[in-house]
């Protein structure tokens, strides 16, 4: 399917993307923890002039049960304009939706009715295993030469190595494993890149057995979860450098490189420091011809009455912030940091990436705080701001509250619930305010939990740009 003029949602530069019109719809991954009914892609109305603003306006059940949707992405994005292999006349149209638990990959078509996406293809776990040798697919990125899909586990029950599978741009078939030489890399989680610099970055979570039945306390205290990030040569597909954060810094997850293709830095969030339960955000940057990391944000644990803590945390008498997602605005100015444990979303001005300055905070939910949404002040909230997505123009931030089925159950044992919130941003001074009109929750999600949000036409974590 090709067009005569470029897809209007493709932008040569981050600046062009920031000037694009606001999103009218958002797609949200929703999953049934009990696998009794199918997971779904839920469509939310984000047009403030619409009568259905903030409501669920579309719902697409997936064909199977037990996928456990987590992250997902577009078939094509602004990287289609990259000059080495341009293909600007394809459409941003299909959502590539992996099942993190089932290893199944669902492909949804958002045309002709963007409110009712249709499932047009399902790639079974056996194809991912046979062609690429991977399982537990996670992050989806639209690359200039194919769709990059990270995966946490190996094939046929193997714990690893996890890695990256390449899907064909048009048929979405699995072409194979991306790595030509993985060096010491074994654990996998997120992937992104500095596209014009031929640099790819990956992070580390754990193997399937380390995550699927919940976080394993002994492994965590033994510092066995991931604690390094990896740099690769995007052109030759070879491992270049492993940068260890220190084994107390467990689980560096989301990778957010600068959108400006001339910049060579990015941020990675670390879930927990096992020495003091703090969370942190690190900056990666060049250091001569090598890569280095610098801790630029540290968020301490908050002391709490053990009686109010779940079993896992009782011995510590404190709530860890649990930074499980971060997101960088398209103009590279504001970094958003989700503290899923304490129930807080923080905003930092990272104009000077080495010295972030906190400019905003909103509290929602939290293991102890249970802060209600101002639109429903009598209703204590479970879960906390988790997946965070920023609009292209940087004026709106969407957060959802589930982390991962088995982990939700450990940290919020009385039920994590399901809610999304939208926060308005002052793009000049910074600062976050909850939008009272946008708080879909509870029955709107029909008992499913909500994870990643993708905005119609692209968002801050979906597109890469080849021009400054």
């Amino acid at each position: 399917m090709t067009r005569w003029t470029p897809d209007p949602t493709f932008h040569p530069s981050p600046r062009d993307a920031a000037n694009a019109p606001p999103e009218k719809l958002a797609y949200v991954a929703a999953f049934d923890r009990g696998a009794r009914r199918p997971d779904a892609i839920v469509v939310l109305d984000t047009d403030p002039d619409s009568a259905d603003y903030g409501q669920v306006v579309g719902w697409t059940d997936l064909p199977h049960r037990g996928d456990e949707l987590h992250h997902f992405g577009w078939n094509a994005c602004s990287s289609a304009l990259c000059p080495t292999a341009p293909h600007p006349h394809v459409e941003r149209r299909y959502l590539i939706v992996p099942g993190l638990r089932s290893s199944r990959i669902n492909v949804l078509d958002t045309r002709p009715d963007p409110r009712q996406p249709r499932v047009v293809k399902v790639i079974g776990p056996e194809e991912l295993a046979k062609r690429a040798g991977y399982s537990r697919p996670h992050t989806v990125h639209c690359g200039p030469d194919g769709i990059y899909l990270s995966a946490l586990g190996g094939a046929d029950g193997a714990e690893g190595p996890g890695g990256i599978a390449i899907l064909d741009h048009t048929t979405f078939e699995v072409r194979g494993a991306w790595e030509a030489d993985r060096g010491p890399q074994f654990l996998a989680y997120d992937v992104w890149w500095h596209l014009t610099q031929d640099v790819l970055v990956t992070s580390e979570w754990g193997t399937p057995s380390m995550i699927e039945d919940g976080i394993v306390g002994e492994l965590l205290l033994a510092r066995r979860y991931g604690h390094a990030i990896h740099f690769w040569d995007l052109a030759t597909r070879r491992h270049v450098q492993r940068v260890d954060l220190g084994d107390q810094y467990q689980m560096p997850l989301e990778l957010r490189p600068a959108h400006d293709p001339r910049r060579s830095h990015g941020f990675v969030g670390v879930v927990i420091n096992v020495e003091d339960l703090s969370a942190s955000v690190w900056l990666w940057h060049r250091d001569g011809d090598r890569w280095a990391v610098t801790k630029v944000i540290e968020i301490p644990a908050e002391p709490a009455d053990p009686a109010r803590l779940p079993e896992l945390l009782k011995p510590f008498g404190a709530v860890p912030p649990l930074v499980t997602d971060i997101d960088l605005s398209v103009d590279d100015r504001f970094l958003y940091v989700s503290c899923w444990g304490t129930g807080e979303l923080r905003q930092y001005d990272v104009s000077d990436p080495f010295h972030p300055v906190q400019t905003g905070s909103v509290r929602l939910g939290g293991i102890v705080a249970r802060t209600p949404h101002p639109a429903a002040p009598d209703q204590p909230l479970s879960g906390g701001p988790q997946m965070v997505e920023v609009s292209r123009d940087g004026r709106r931030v969407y957060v959802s509250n589930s982390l991962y089925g088995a982990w939700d159950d450990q940290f919020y044992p009385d039920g994590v619930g399901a809610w999304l919130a939208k926060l308005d941003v002052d793009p000049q001074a910074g600062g976050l305010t909850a939008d009272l009109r946008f708080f879909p929750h509870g029955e709107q999600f029909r008992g499913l939990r909500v994870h990643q949000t993708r905005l119609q036409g692209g968002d801050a974590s979906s597109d890469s740009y080849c021009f400054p």
Partner: protein
Amino acid sequence: MTVAGWAALVALGVFHGVNPAMGWLFAVARGLQEGSQRALLLSLPPIAAGHLASVGLVAALVVATRSVTTSTALAVAGGLVLVGFGLWRLLSARHFRWAGMRLSSAQLAAWSFLMSSAHGAGLMLLPVLLVDPPGATAGHAAHPAGAPVGALTGLGAAAVHTVAMFAAALALALTVHRVLGLGVLRRAWFNVDRLWAAVLMVAGLVTLIHA
């Protein structure tokens, strides 16, 4: 080569030059990435060299082959190849794959060579190259050995074509870089691939009709 023939070569050169996939856009990207117009300007000669190699190869082959086989057979075969290649370009959804963006000048020339070849840039010149009966070019008629001279004519044709391509790419790259900005891409980058495929097929049909 007739005046019309040279004019056609120049026109096709301009057509190839303005196609963003043939290199001017890459030159602009390199200029912006490095923050210098110099990087843009230095990128274009290797791109043109790669294009010349791709087109010149086809031209030299065609003109050399023509001296040893009947021009009708060659024209029919060439025309069929062109129409087929045009159809394939039109219908195939495959994208040119090239992973890296930080290229040396030699790699840039290689990229351009592959890009031009994959798009069938040289093939598009077939009707122009074939319209000239062997040995008929003024001044070359007296030479007994047709092949080497013909090959030289072919290379001359490729060179003229490439100069036109280079000029068009340079003009467009500088205009976008200095005046228009990249926002113009979103409006003005119409689907050259389809037009390209159509031109290939028209070129094939013209060749067949003249055969």
